[in-house]
């Protein structure tokens, strides 16, 4: 086990420079012999943003306890810089027209899932007829989580309030009964357990945006952290 060529240091202890997929990596040192991990390589797929890898499962990442708001108590609000705040009960919300959509999703922690299927109410529909001078929106959720977007990034067919995933009601651990879905941005912006959108004239960094994560979060420009 001790290789004299390495001056008596056990072979498993020497560090190696390695490169990361698609770029120059920092010398990470130790490599675990024979470890591959479960993710699939992206293989220069132009649907996978830089620095991401594909996963088979759907990882659950949480910042707090999973809420369990009974549907009878659930409501969704559009409020803030609006002439008339609006609210929908669960029945009213589910009576609105929904769209089925298929999108790729990208988490800032580097996993991506291609072709996920959802059903939800377009945010455009919820904001229809809303008169506002606001340029930004804050999504607020059960448990206190928030995330922020420029209002135009939540409109124009780019965002939904999703209630169904893969043909089934959205499970609580993935944000059910309803979550914001904004797949063109890193998935922390697709706020779980969403309860409303507050339109604001000044941007308000949300839960993660106020603690190091990039205010915008475009996966194609790798906007993960402040200053990226």
């Amino acid at each position: 086990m001790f290789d004299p060529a390495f001056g008596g240091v056990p072979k498993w202890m020497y560090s190696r420079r390695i490169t990361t997929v698609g770029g120059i990596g920092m010398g990470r040192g130790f490599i675990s012999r024979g470890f591959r991990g479960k993710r699939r390589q992206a293989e220069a797929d132009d649907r996978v943003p830089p620095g991401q890898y594909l996963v088979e499962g759907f990882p659950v990442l949480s910042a707090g306890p999973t809420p369990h708001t009974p549907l009878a108590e659930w409501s969704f609000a559009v409020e803030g810089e609006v002439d008339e705040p609006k609210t929908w009960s669960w029945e009213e919300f589910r009576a609105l027209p929904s769209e089925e959509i298929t999108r790729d999703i990208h988490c800032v922690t580097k996993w991506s899932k291609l072709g996920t299927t959802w059903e939800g109410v377009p945010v455009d529909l919820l904001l229809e007829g809303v008169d506002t001078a606001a340029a930004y929106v804050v999504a607020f959720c059960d448990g206190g989580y928030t995330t922020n977007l420029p209002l135009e990034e939540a409109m124009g067919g780019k965002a939904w309030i999703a209630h169904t995933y893969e043909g089934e009601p959205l499970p609580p651990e993935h944000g059910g009964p309803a979550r914001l879905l904004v797949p063109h941005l890193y998935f922390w912006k697709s706020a779980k357990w969403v309860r409303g959108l507050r339109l604001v004239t000044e941007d308000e960094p949300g839960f993660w945006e106020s603690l190091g994560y990039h205010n915008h979060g475009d996966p194609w420009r790798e906007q993960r952290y402040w200053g990226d």
Partner: protein
Amino acid sequence: MDEQKLDGNAAAGVLAEIFTFEITTARSTCVNCGATGEVGAQMAYVSEIGTVVRCAVCDNPLIRIVRQDAGPQRYWLDLKGIEYLQLQERL
């Protein structure tokens, strides 16, 4: 049953990257509800996106940590949820 909810002790690893003294046995007082207890006895939500330690009584975030690994290594640490920490030498 919330699989992501762990004991505060589960945050010990990332806390030990920042603090050189043992935080899990420090007593924290929650700014929201005033409950006092060892950090290890609070609730921890630990994942690759960040770690949040929440008050076991009222769920208010006590400690939030984000770590950036690539490029510069940076940490963001929010302790606003703690009124004060009491640290005592282990006997």
